């Protein structure tokens, strides 16, 4: 099993550009999550999904969109990149929602200039 994979590893965007961060898991997990980590801080939840076709907002959803058309994939879309979105983005997955271990991908480091 590859676990949770994310692409790209690094990306530099100009203000106003758009991009999609890809996340795929091969563990057949129902639950998937997107977090962001700002320098020197812990992670904050952006969006999550409890299964294909179902998504919901986390703590910091503004400026982002997600979709979940399959169990495996959970892409995160940035429509109009802003410097405040400079961060490291982590995708995670878990088999069950309540009280279940979450497994994290390697992260995508995004810089918006």
């Amino acid at each position: 099993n590859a676990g949770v994979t994310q692409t790209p590893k690094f990306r530099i965007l100009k203000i106003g550009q758009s991009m999609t961060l890809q996340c795929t898991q091969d563990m057949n997990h129902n639950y998937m999550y997107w977090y962001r980590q700002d320098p020197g801080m812990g992670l904050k939840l952006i969006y999550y999904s409890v299964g294909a076709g179902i998504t919901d907002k986390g703590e910091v959803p503004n400026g982002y969109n997600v979709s979940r058309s399959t169990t495996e994939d959970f892409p995160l879309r940035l429509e109009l990149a802003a410097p405040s979105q400079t961060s490291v983005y982590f995708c995670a997955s878990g088999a069950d929602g309540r009280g279940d271990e979450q497994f994290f991908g390697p992260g995508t480091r995004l810089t918006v200039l």
Partner: protein
Amino acid sequence: GIQVEQSPPDLILQEGANSTLRCNFSDSVNNLQWFHQNPWGQLINLFYIPSGTKQNGRLSATTVATERYSLLYISSSQTTDSGVYFCAVGPYDYKLSFGAGTTVTVRA
């Protein structure tokens, strides 16, 4: 939302020393995990421990859910233990709340 406080914020150790990291949380939890973030930024799961005690090599963890705290013990520290240790908790839903982390530096 649930509040998570980790202490100390920074810890400098000499190789071979033992240490204890603490995580306090403000409400009942159904999920508690400890992570190590390595110098390359990757989050490595150390323990899934909403209650009880677990050990894995030189690391062990204890969660006392009724008193709303968890402890991570590092024994005989090595330079490879350096990094940031995060505690993350989930109340009775599936959203994890992270603490600010403890930065550990182990000197040779």
